[in-house]
């Protein structure tokens, strides 16, 4: 995913000299194609996230589309007020890019676990979350953001994710579900956001019974503003199980539940949420282990 990101960004920056990349002293082995090609549009703020986000706002206020690159929680929580007041309130074109969504940096410990990032970002009225499930969705998300510069958060996994979404819709819009797999006799769909798509896809693909009954959908672009359009998607399925590598509180499933509550209460009973259980907070382990402890491999027990 991160490779798809930098490839798209470099290609876009060739055409658009307003694209700027700011990093918070992170990105070794990732950002060089950009920093070497466009040294005058690449800035390392040092380990100073508040200033990093302030500078990004200042550059964006003068017409730049600023990509701020860091990992896990770092470009969000330390500088949360800069995102809220400077970026979101002013509506500036700053795209916050975080590599290592969920528990991708498992063994690095809780400081590096981005399991509350959706909750922070989705509470801001102008922010668009781009949480792609595979490299194809990553490319599509970046293209959407480049064509529609706005306050936004791009949550990436790490590297080496397989391609799953073979047919990213050509008219890719926020709030739009991507149909990844259609079951022959569906009783419902598993709706994912972010890199957890790979896990869900594997579980369904490897089980003939589940494969018969459960479709898979992905929602890579979502926000406060795209809640209302969820209703038409929800209505297509008798059951929807949301899956996310994020905690329940303030997360993706909670967002969908809120959408149903706000716009069509009858749909609430169709939704079940699969999010990381609190058991993960005091454990250090690799991503797959944490996702397992967090309950993400046991999709049908609640």
């Amino acid at each position, binding site marked *: 995913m991160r490779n798809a990101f930098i490839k798209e960004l470099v290609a876009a920056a060739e055409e658009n000299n307003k694209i700027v990349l700011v990093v918070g002293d992170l990105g070794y082995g990732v950002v060089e194609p950009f920093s070497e090609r466009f040294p*005058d*549009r690449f*800035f390392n*703020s*040092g380990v*100073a996230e*508040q*200033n990093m*986000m*302030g*500078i*990004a*706002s*200042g*550059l*964006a*206020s*003068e*017409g*730049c589309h600023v990509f701020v690159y860091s990992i896990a929680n770092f470009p969000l929580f330390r500088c949360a*007020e*800069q995102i809220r*007041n*400077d970026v979101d*309130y*002013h509506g500036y074109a700053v795209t916050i890019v975080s590599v290592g969504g969920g528990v991708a940096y498992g063994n690095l410990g809780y400081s590096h676990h981005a399991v509350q990032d959706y909750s922070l970002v989705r509470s801001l009225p102008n922010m668009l979350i781009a949480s792609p499930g595979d490299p194809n969705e990553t490319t599509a998300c970046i293209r959407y953001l480049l064509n529609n510069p706005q306050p936004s958060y791009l949550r990436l996994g790490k590297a080496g994710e397989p391609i799953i979404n073979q047919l990213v819709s050509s008219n890719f819009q926020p709030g739009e579900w991507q149909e990844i797999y259609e079951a022959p006799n569906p009783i419902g769909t598993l709706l994912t956001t972010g890199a957890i798509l790979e896990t869900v896809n594997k579980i369904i693909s490897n089980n003939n019974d589940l494969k018969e009954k459960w479709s898979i959908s992905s929602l890579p672009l979502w926000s406060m503003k795209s809640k209302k359009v969820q209703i038409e998607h929800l209505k297509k399925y008798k059951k929807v199980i949301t899956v996310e590598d994020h905690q329940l509180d303030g997360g993706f499933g909670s967002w969908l539940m809120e959408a149903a509550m706000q716009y069509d209460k009858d749909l609430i009973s169709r939704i079940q949420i699969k999010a990381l259980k609190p058991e993960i907070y005091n454990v250090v382990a690799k991503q797959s282990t944490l996702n397992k402890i967090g309950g993400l491999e046991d999709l049908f027990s609640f």
Partner: protein
Amino acid sequence: MSYSTIQFAKQVRISALEMVYQAKASHIASALSIADIVSVLYENILNIEPSNPRAPERDRFILSKGHACVAVYAALKQIGILTKDQLETYGEDFSWLMNHISHKVPGVEFSTGSLGHGLPVGVGKALAAKQGRHSWHVFVLLSDGEMDEGSNWEALMFAAHHKLSNITAIIDYNKLQSLTSIAETLGLEPLADKLRAFGAHVYEVDGHDHQQLIKVLSEKDSIGKPRVVVAHTTKGKGVSFMENEVKWHYKNPSHEELKRAILEIEGNDAQCIY
């Protein structure tokens, strides 16, 4: 040269007092503290076209101490961007003129209210100007208490590292903050030395002396460093009973106090309508 800025500053103080009185708002002492700095900026320094407040080549001014916004709203009225009628809506429901400076007001570059935001954003703007080879200058006016915020020091380091000589930070050093003095809250001294150590070119001036302010704020030589003007000021300046009194960070004047304040500012020429 400074006669007109002195008249300008008198009017800024009076308008600020009137707005705070009408809206029963706070922070009058903070606004009086920066009235001279703001007046010199708008009357003598900033390249602004009142008929086109968003002209691309304008100088950028950010009031980082957004709670002192009435001084800036008053100055925008003085230069003809806002009208007296608009000022009178200050603090009313649905008014653009909210009690912390708002970018929705014509002529206002950036909204603040939480401290420690203006300088990093100003540095981003200065960086954009340098990248685009624009000649406009960035001015950011901060409070002294605001220098408690680490983000300002991060921004200074960055500005010095990138040799941004197209930005001037002005610190309104009135030595009082929200509960008591700076010295009793979180000492800033030696402030000028700290700023120099962070790579800034530092000036110290009397923040109520228009000649000194005009002199340092006019300097645009290429020194390869961000400029910081430490402006020694008096909180509540111009109204004797508001000077150096913490309570005027919060209190709004009574009708009687407003009258006394305006008479003090106007002196014998007073034409107080209240």
